[in-house]
């Protein structure tokens, strides 16, 4: 795809990082677009933080090319790069007031006193920390420290803002509030955000695009919908949301023969995911599966019969574990009015729309 576009905000070409024999990041190719909210998602130790630190200059790549707005920055020290970082632990300077923390970057880049005062006041206003200017970090709550860390980075007007799990230390309620706040802040300032997280919900709710990493490799890049609906392999499908995996073989590009011998229709499988005749897994999201009595299933759709083995009420939904003759499927049914609730032991049918499933590499 060669669309006419200005240089990417961040461009990685075959970037690797080795520590002795350990490969932390393995030949990553990645373009992050100007003004986008990009999430690097993966389990701990997958190399996402190392990738972020290489963009920030806190680690130097072992090989490959790393460009920020077309400028090669691979070996440059962090203070020579037009990026700033919001650290996981916030890393606020404990011996400085909020004001001095926020003004640190401007002071180091030799801005005039009046400019520093203006921009610091503006940044503190942006994160709604007015009135706290003279406090020390130790006198602030976790959420407030988070805001100061954001202001301290944004005040420098970086071309790219790097965020290393900035919400991990906050409790659930505050984390959800901050997700919305971060997103709207990003729209307001228009800066490219690169965000590292292991929390798939956070990545799905905030990002324009997500890069999923595992064991140092970048597995898939795409919009949250792409990643969720069309994961390329079992790891991605399993890591993002919950899923059932049905083993089978790809017979032709629209048919999978399941382990029990039954055939199901699938959306056309691109050849880069699996070739005809190769073993595949069908990813079936619990909330995409319909559940009903044996007579309720429409004739046309793919269907499987089973027996309810267990059920859990979650408030917004009801989860069923349905025992088939060769495996157990998890089904999640929305809590809508008039919905019939099935009990343990009920004989039920499961069915789904053809586009509700994704074929993935095992």
């Amino acid at each position, binding site marked *: 795809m060669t669309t006419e576009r200005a240089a990417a905000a961040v461009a990685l070409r075959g970037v690797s990082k080795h520590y002795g024999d350990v490969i932390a990041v393995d030949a990553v190719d990645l373009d992050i677009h100007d003004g986008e909210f990009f999430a690097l998602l993966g389990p701990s130790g997958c190399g996402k933080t190392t990738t972020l630190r290489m963009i920030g200059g806190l680690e130097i790549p072992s090989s490959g090319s790393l460009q920020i707005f077309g400028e090669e920055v691979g070996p440059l020290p962090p*203070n020579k790069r037009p*990026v700033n*970082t919001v650290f996981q632990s916030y*890393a606020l*300077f404990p*011996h400085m007031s909020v004001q001095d923390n926020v003004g640190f970057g401007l002071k180091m880049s030799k801005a005039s006193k009046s400019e520093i005062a203006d921009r610091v006041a503006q940044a503190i206003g942006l994160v709604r920390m007015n009135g706290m200017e003279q406090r020390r970090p130790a006198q602030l709550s976790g959420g407030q420290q988070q805001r100061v860390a954001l202001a301290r980075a944004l005040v420098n007007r970086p071309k790219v803002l790097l965020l290393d799990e900035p919400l991990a230390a906050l409790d659930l309620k505050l984390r959800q509030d901050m997700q919305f706040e971060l997103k709207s802040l990003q729209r307001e300032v228009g800066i490219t955000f690169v965000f590292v997280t292991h929390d798939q919900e956070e990545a799905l709710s905030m990002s324009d695009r997500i890069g999923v990493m595992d064991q140092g490799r970048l597995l898939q890049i795409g919009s949250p919908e792409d990643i969720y609906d069309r994961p390329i392999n079992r790891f991605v499908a399993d890591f993002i949301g919950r899923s059932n995996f049905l083993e089978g073989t790809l017979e032709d590009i629209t048919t999978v023969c399941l382990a029990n011998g039954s055939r199901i229709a699938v959306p056309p499988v691109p050849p880069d995911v699996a070739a005809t005749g190769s073993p595949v897994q069908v990813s079936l999201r619990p909330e995409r599966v319909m559940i009903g009595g044996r007579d309720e299933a429409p004739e046309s759709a793919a269907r499987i019969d089973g027996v309810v083995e267990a059920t859990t009420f979650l408030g917004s939904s009801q989860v069923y574990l349905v025992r088939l003759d060769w495996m157990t499927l998890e089904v999640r049914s929305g809590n809508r009015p008039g919905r019939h609730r099935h009990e343990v032991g009920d004989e039920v049918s499961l069915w789904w729309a053809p586009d509700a499933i994704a074929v993935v590499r095992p």
Partner: protein
Amino acid sequence: MSETAVRPDDTATADLDAELGRAEARRDRAERRRGLLIALPAYAYMVLFFVVPLFIVLLYSFATRTSTGSTSLSGWNLDSYTRLAEPIVRNVVFRSAVLAFITTVICLVVAYPYAYLAATRSTTIRNLMLIAVMIPFWTNFLVRNYTWRLLLSNGGPISSFTERIGLGETSLLFTQTAVVIGLVYSFLPFMILPLYASIDRLDWRLVEASRDLYASGVQSFRKVILPLTMPGVIAGSILVFVPSMGAYVTPELLGGGKQPLLGSYIVTQFLTARNWPFGASLSFVLMAVMLVSTIVYFRSGGKNL
């Protein structure tokens, strides 16, 4: 949370809370008593060998020196304190303070890079560097000072070395330079160890954050590393300055006692001049000044931490 009416069981809950509170207070008191008991030997030791002698020194400083040089514990007066204002005393104190200050600064300049290096290397190198600091302690303090006498003497190894490389003979022994060398050598570990401890505790993520915020290596050191390791700098400086100020053996052996320092001067008062009240008042004032300046130093440093 919400302002609802008082439920009947609220009073019962309050009673239970109060009872639990009292039980906790009882436990705390028992805990404190036990703590006191464990610390008792240490307290007794401190009182017997520190507080009591100190009190005796204080007592003697108000006593009278008889014409024969013995001390009469009667006719209490402040004579020995008025003598502190004499020019000769002021000179001795000033000279000692300057030497102690120079010693402290040199120790700081030498110890900081050493401690920094030790704290940032691999475990093996760090342990080797720390052991190297402690090895001199395995030899007697006096022996080490006599060794320096040998090294610094006319025609000694240092002198012959400077002669060989064309700088001419050096006669360092019995100079103030020799005293400073000896003091730095003796007290360097007391500077290195607290510095090492505070650099080792430093949160390096803060250093990374400063580099990320456009600080160069030097700026990062001045604005983040140094302020955050200030407790180590202060502790080390006090541990070097205070004993340097009152040092006796090193100035005697390496300085030749030509220009007396405070330590020697106090010893002279007790042994040669046989003026115990004056020696006692000197000791006591020295200690009081040190104590006050230490408190002031810690208070001023504490504000920034």
